[in-house]
C-alpha cells in the first residue's frame, strides 16, 4: 500500500527511481481476469499497486481507458499479452473503490456521464492538500495571494512533488484555508 509521505525530501528521490515491474508482470495469467474470487482479489491488488506506481513514476494524472491499453503498463510485448478493456476497467473501478482514482464525468445535472478517462490519485486528494499546505506553511505564505501558476508551474516549486500537478486535480482540492479566486 502507498504510505503517506511525511518526509518530503524522500519524495523526489522516489519519483526518479527506476521503476521495477513486479514479478506478476511477466506471468501471463496476470493479463486475464481470473474467475476465482480469491485469485482475482490478489491479481487486482497487484494491478492497483502497479498502476499507482507506474503513474507516479511517469507522473500521469489521468488514464484514458482506450489509450492506456497499448501502453507498456497494460501490454507486455515480450509475453505478447495485453489486458482486455474489460480487465482495465475492472482495475480502474477497483482503484475508484479504494479512493485512488475517480472517473472523469462529462455533462451536467441529469446528463452526467462517465467518460473513458480516469483520474489516478497516486497521492490522494487529502495528501495533495496536505503537501500544498505544508509548502505554504514552510514558506510562510499563509494569508497571502498566490496565482495558480506560481503554485504549480512556477520555478519556485520546481522541486516540490506537486510541480506540474494536473489542474483539474488541483481544483478538486478541498483543504480548508486555501481559497480560490
Amino acid at each position, binding site marked *: 500500500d502507498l504510505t503517506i509521505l511525511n518526509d518530503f525530501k524522500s519524495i523526489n528521490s522516489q519519483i526518479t527511481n527506476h521503476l521495477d515491474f513486479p*514479478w*506478476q508482470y511477466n*506471468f*501471463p*495469467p496476470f*493479463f*486475464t481476469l*481470473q*474467475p*476465482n474470487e*480469491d*485469485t482475482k482479489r*490478489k*491479481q487486482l491488488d*497487484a494491478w492497483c499497486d502497479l498502476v499507482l506506481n507506474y503513474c507516479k513514476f511517469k507522473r500521469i494524472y489521468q488514464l484514458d481507458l482506450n489509450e492506456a491499453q497499448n501502453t507498456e503498463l497494460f501490454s507486455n510485448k515480450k509475453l505478447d*499479452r495485453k489486458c482486455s478493456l474489460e480487465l482495465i476497467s475492472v482495475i480502474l473501478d477497483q482503484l475508484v473503490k479504494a479512493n485512488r482514482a475517480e472517473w472523469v464525468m462529462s455533462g451536467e445535472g441529469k446528463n452526467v456521464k462517465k467518460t473513458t478517462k480516469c483520474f489516478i490519485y497516486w497521492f490522494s486528494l487529502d495528501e495533495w492538500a496536505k503537501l500544498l499546505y505544508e509548502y505554504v506553511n514552510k514558506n510562510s505564505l499563509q494569508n497571502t495571494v498566490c496565482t495558480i501558476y506560481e503554485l504549480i508551474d512556477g520555478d519556485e516549486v520546481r522541486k516540490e512533488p506537486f510541480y506540474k500537478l494536473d489542474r483539474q486535480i488541483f481544483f478538486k482540492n478541498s483543504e480548508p484555508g486555501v481559497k480560490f479566486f
Partner: protein
Amino acid sequence: MNTVKWSNGKLFPNEDLIYDQQAITIYNLEEKTGFQKGKLQLTSHRLLWNDHNDKNCILEISLNQIKNAELKQVQNRPPSSSTSSKLSRQIYPRILLNLDKPFELSNLVDVYGAYPQSFVYFEFEYGGHNEFYQMLNNQLTRKKWTMSLDQQNSLNTKIQNIGISGIQRQKQDKLDQQDQQINESFKDLGVLMSQAKEMVNLSNSLISKISKATVASTNENEETEDIKKLKGYFLNMGLIDNPVTKESSGSQYHKALALEISNNFTKIISQNGGIMTLADIYCKLNRARGIAGLISAEDLLNACKQLNKINLDLKYNVYKDLNLHVLEIQNNQMNEQNMSKISELIEQNEYLTPYGLSKSMGCSLIVAKKLLLDGEQYGKLCRDETNIDLRFYKNLFLL
C-alpha cells in the same frame, strides 16, 4: 417347374447383386445335400448358389417363389439316428426358406436323394447369417422383380405419358435411382462386414474361452484376477458377453443396465481420471454390447439415473455450466490424484491446455477442461486466455 433350378449365373439386365456369403451348405431338412460350402449370392431377383469347385454348378431360387424366410440360431441338435451324426459336429446358424411349391433336389443331383419338400435350409459356417437374413428380407419386401416390369411398361408408353403421369414417371425414375444408390452403398457395407467377420469369429472364440476358464477356476483368486483383467481389455476392444436386454430383465431393465455399466466401467473410469462423459460411455457401451445389444441414449440416461439410487462407486452427475453429463467416481483421493497429475504436467511444461491434458490423460477434451476448471476453482490453477487457446498455470497469485 421346379423352384430350385440350374442357372447360368448371369444377372438380368436390371438385376442387382446385393450381398454374398461364403461357405454355405444347402440342407434338405436335416439331410446335408451335395451342395456344400458354396457361395450364396443375393440379388434383387434371385438367390444364386455357386459351387466353389465347379464353376458351372450354379443353383437359383427366384425371390418371388419364397413365401417367407426364418433365421434359425444355433441350438442343440437332437440326437439323430442318421449315420452322419456319429461324428460330433458343430451346428452353425441357418436360414430357412419356405417356398411356394415343393422342390426335388433329386432332380438336380442324385447323391443324397430326398422326398419333395417346400423347405430349404442354408447353413452359414462362417457366420454372417444375421446380415444376410436382413438383406434377404429387405429384398423380399422391396419386390424389385415386380417393379422392374412396371418400369418397362412405363418406358414403352413413354411418349403418350405426359402431364401428371409424366411427373409421376419422373418421380418413379428418381426413386429407382435412389434405390440403386442404396443398393450400391449396401454392397460396400457387405465388403466391410465380410472383412470384420474374421475379427468377430476370433473374439467369439476368446469369449467362449473366458467363460470356460471362469467356470473352471472359480476357487482360484489369481486366475479370476487375470480373467477380470482380460475382460477389461475386451471392454476396451469392445466386447461384453451376455449383454443385459429388455427381454432378460423386464421391468428391472434399467437397474440391470446400471449394474452392467457399474461392473464394466468402474475400473476403466478410475483409470482414466475417474470421470467420463456420457457420450463416451454410450459409444463404448454400445461397441461392447455389439450389434445385437445396441441400446438407446434414453435407456442409458435412465440407467445412469438408477445408478445413483443403487449407491455404487460410480455416480451420474451433470455440470450445467459446461452442459456436461458424466459418470464419475466420487472420492477425494481421485481428485487429489488428478490434481497431482495436473501439477506434475504443469511443472514439466510451465502451462497446460485442455487439449494437452486430454492427450496425456486419455480423457475427452471437455472432461480435461472440466478438471482444469476444477483446479482453478480450488485455487490451484489460474488461467491465461488468449486468442489462440486457454492455458492454465500454477496459481502463483495465491502462493
